[in-house]
């Protein structure tokens, strides 16, 4: 049987339905599956030990900011009456889920792969700190929503994987400040921002960029959706929802093509690297 990979999801609240819910982007699970792992998502932070016992590896996905109290810092100064949006968004419940799971998998010696916020969680769990907002605190303009070049550190697993440099996407406003103990920098952007880290001995690594989008239409979809301003007027949203729900409940007809991803993305080097660590049973990777 394939190794079992546990993924963490986002923590959301819908004021319309008064419901708290979990959420995960489809591309994360698909990327894990394409690399040969069975992908499931954790659903209760109290069960961190059970999840760590059952799974073979942990994928900490991207999301909102980590509460600064978790890395012994204070919220950066911000005037809530300024009319400007706050430069940070955090989720109390997500912090607990991610940190508890990360700690449990570290204790079990099992592989951990962090993406975006996930990489920052790894850094915090090992005692590191973060810059809370790159433009305000670091006074740097880091690329947002566009690709940029990163340079990889010789001697790291990611260097062996991607070469001395690579082009990656960028969707983050926070960055690693002090590195946690036992961690080393595996990639840096040209402006000095940490883009990847690895543990010196444990099978744990993280990347600041979003590799789950590679080989998918995620970026296309993102740009297309960003351009949609108004719904077309001729569609009745209530009727549309009703018909859609009816479709959903109907028994699906086998053999009829869906607009689902029929082919899983494969050959994603970073995900392949993670699955290699998992398949090795979590022994040292370098």
């Amino acid at each position, binding site marked *: 049987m394939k190794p079992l990979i546990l993924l963490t999801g986002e923590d959301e609240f819908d004021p319309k339905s008064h419901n708290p819910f979990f959420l995960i982007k489809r591309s994360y699970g698909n990327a894990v599956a394409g690399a040969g792992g069975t992908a499931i998502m954790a659903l209760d932070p109290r069960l961190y030990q059970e999840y760590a016992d059952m799974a073979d590896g942990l994928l900490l996905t991207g999301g909102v900011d980590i509460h600064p109290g978790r890395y012994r810092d204070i919220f950066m100064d911000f005037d809530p009456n300024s009319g400007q949006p706050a430069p940070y968004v955090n989720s109390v419940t997500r912090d607990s889920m991610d940190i508890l799971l990360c700690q449990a998998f570290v204790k079990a010696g099992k592989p951990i792969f962090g993406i975006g916020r996930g990489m920052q969680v790894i850094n915090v769990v090992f005692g590191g700190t973060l810059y809370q907002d790159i433009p305000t605190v670091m006074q740097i303009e880091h690329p947002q929503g566009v690709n940029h070049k990163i340079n990889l550190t010789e001697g790291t697993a990611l260097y062996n994987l991607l070469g001395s440099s690579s082009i990656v996407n960028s969707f983050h406003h926070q960055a690693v400040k002090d590195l946690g103990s036992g961690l080393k920098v595996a990639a840096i952007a040209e402006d000095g921002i940490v883009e990847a880290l690895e543990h010196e001995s444990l099978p744990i690594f993280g990347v600041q960029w979003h590799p789950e989008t590679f080989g998918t239409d995620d970026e296309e*979809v993102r740009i297309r959706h960003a351009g949609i301003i108004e719904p077309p007027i001729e569609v009745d949203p209530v009727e549309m929802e009703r018909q859609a729900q009816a479709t959903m*409940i*109907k*028994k699906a007809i086998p053999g009829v093509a869906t607009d689902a991803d029929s082919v899983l993305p494969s050959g994603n080097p970073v995900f392949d690297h993670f699955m290699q660590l998992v398949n090795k049973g979590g022994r040292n990777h370098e």
Partner: protein
Amino acid sequence: MNKPVILIMWGSCLDTKFSAHSMMLTKAYSAAITAAGGIPILPLVESQVEDYVAMADGLLLPGAMGFVPRPELARTLALERYSRQAHFETELYQAFRKTGKPILGICAGCQKINCEENGTLHLDFRKMFGREHHQGVTHSVEALPGSWIADLWGTSFFINSYHGFKIAKIGDGLRITAYSEEGIPEVIEHKELPIFGTQFHPERMRGDFPNPPEGPNSEPLFQMFLQACKS
């Protein structure tokens, strides 16, 4: 003592940051499973249905859930979501059914079970009966003595109601074991397999803010389901 692993089907949505196609699960469902002593997990990839069936002890098909961070994206979501979601859920249901592992369907999940067994639905029954069952009302229900639901809660109890569709023709091998006052099916069970469905939301009938507050506590229902999953 090993806790049973319960797979919970998801709903389609978009995430806030990338507006990317995503899956969601209302926390009330996983909380109900944890409280009853199970380990809830979310399956993520269609092609891995066989792996999920092998690792899990039971399947929960929840009610309809959706989330669109920007209303102008609702159409793009509706067009894409329902076929993919329908296929995934069908595959999951059929795979579990084949193994004989327990399945619990709630609201749209119950309707899905009915359709998978070749039953049909009325898509807007309020005009038939002139009674609103949608968007959260409480009403009473009469259950058949000897049914699994009557064994838990007796033959007369209050439930919540959030549905606009109803079961019309009951699927093969299924029977209706509870009705609302005006004869709307509220609970189904399979005659032989450990497959159960409720038109109401038992995951909301427990915890700190049970709905309805005067209703029966649903913890015995989830405990019964988990017990079935353990065997």
